[in-house]
């Protein structure tokens, strides 16, 4: 194997990256266009006025507020449950271990629409009214695996002798968790939480089933996607959403830098 990639490989891989990023650049550009009725390219002129108009919209603020609430609550549940599974799974060999793995990845391996309608049938049967609570229940379900993936990788790198040493030195279970385990997994847990927040903040397919009349930011966006009413405002919200999901990813990446890779592949 040569030290330098062949021209063909460099072209093919760079072209792939351009393909991945060009549409994001287009989103960025359109937030500034002066054209408000069509998607005319190139934009006839550039302006900043849509940012002010979008910021004055109450419906967007309330949708944003709901999305943040949901993402925080779902992430909190996922952090707790994800750490518990990771702690159980990283070393132990037990009957049914594969089944547990399967149940963990099923919410992301099955299409969102299946998860969505399955939860909807349960909500209907349980006689629950779709609300903030039902959205959170749905989101937490598929956020668990994100936290789990990040934390379990860190657990595997932690040596068991640390726990034994802690016990030998007289620490009880809580002290060992607080002063040995937690510092070890903290950054991985936080990285998992960031990803989980981004995942929940952006989720739309399951949410359309569990939200009822509630409107999260992605649901607001979806209605604009199907029936465009406020094109320039949609463009501005688009950039904003990208920023809100990008920042946690960059932070998560920093948190895990120098050690294991960020486990964000299985969104």
């Amino acid at each position: 194997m040569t030290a330098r990639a062949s021209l063909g490989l460099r072209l093919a891989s760079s072209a792939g990256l351009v393909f991945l990023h060009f549409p994001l650049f287009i989103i960025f550009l359109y937030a500034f266009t002066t054209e408000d009725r069509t998607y005319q390219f190139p934009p006839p002129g550039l302006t900043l006025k849509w940012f002010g108009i979008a910021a004055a919209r109450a419906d967007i603020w309330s949708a944003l507020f709901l999305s943040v609430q949901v993402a925080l609550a779902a992430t909190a549940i996922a952090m707790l449950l994800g750490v518990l599974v990771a702690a159980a799974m990283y070393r132990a060999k037990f009957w049914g271990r594969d089944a547990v793995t399967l149940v963990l990845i099923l919410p992301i391996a099955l299409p969102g629409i299946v998860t969505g309608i399955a939860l909807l049938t349960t909500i209907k049967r349980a006689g629950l009214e779709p609300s903030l609570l039902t959205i959170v229940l749905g989101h937490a379900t598929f956020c668990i695996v994100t936290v789990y993936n990040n934390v379990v990788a860190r657990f595997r790198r932690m040596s068991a002798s640390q726990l034994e040493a802690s016990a030998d030195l007289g620490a009880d279970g809580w002290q060992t968790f607080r002063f040995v385990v937690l510092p070890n997994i903290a950054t991985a847990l936080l990285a998992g939480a960031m990803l989980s927040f981004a995942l929940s903040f952006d989720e739309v397919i399951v949410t359309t089933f569990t939200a009822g009349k509630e409107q999260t930011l992605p649901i607001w966006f979806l209605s604009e996607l199907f029936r465009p009413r406020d094109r320039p405002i949609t463009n501005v919200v688009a950039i904003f959403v990208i920023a809100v999901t990008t920042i946690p990813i960059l932070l998560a990446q920093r948190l895990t830098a120098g050690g294991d890779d960020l486990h964000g592949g299985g969104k």
Partner: protein
Amino acid sequence: MNQSTSQPNLPRPNFWRRASSLLYEKPWLGLVLLLAPPLLWLGVFYLGSLLNLLFYSFYSIDDFSGQIKYDLGFSTLAQLFTSSSNVDIVTRTLSMSIAVTIACAVIAFPIGYFMAFYAKGRTKAIWYLLVLLPLWSSYLVRVYAWRLILAREGVASWFFDTLGLRPVLDGILSLPVIGGPSLSSSYLGMFLVFTYVWLPYMILPIQAALERVPKNLIQASSDLGARPAQTFWRIILPLAVPGVAAGSIFTFSLTLGDYIIPGVVGAPGFFIGQVVYTQQGAVGNLPLAAAFSVVPIVIITGYLMFVKRLGAFNAL
């Protein structure tokens, strides 16, 4: 002082200490305690919901009142096979999922290959981020971007006009099946958007699988006289199969269940996800929606078994 006689010099063990001794002696107990809350959540709430969904697919709708009849039967599931339009929907969705998966693998492979073998240090970190960011930036926004690109007055149109390639575009669009009146209302356009949106899911597992190929294996192959092409086809590619299989779980399953992209771009024909969505919402036929959502469950379960044999689960 009221000390116990058996431990004259030790303080009485507190709750946490007794708990940790107990857990040390009985490791299974710790396991049960750790797994109980998450498994209750996933097992009861999630698997229970899936089971419930399965039950709904055996219910049917009363033709006169439009109410759900809670009697188990096969009449709703049978509609999937007896109505030719329903069969068409399943075939259409399946073909699109396969095409998108293949396209993603082809585009992703060189990127993963470059990242695994040639990008070092800082370059590698940057490439990793450049793949991760589109993956995690909003799905809806990325679909929306393609509405801007594919619109009649949008970027793609401008690009073809400026380069004088309009006849080429018209030629492609006049092809049967993949063509249509415009890019944004053809299967070709839908295929582009699907491929774009799921591509990062394919790159990361391929890169991870290639990363694990032992470098000395490649060295050995060339020492034994293999040409680079031989090393690629006989050593590297077989070892990359688990990565491709792992990535294909996502590209395949996500395409199979999506209802938003076929609604925003593409030809009028329905996809499974759209049927599920409209049947439960506008039409109010929850049993038929449930029956349709059983299709992806069955296909994906079969698919998971198939890719498990290719080693996909170890590459996830």
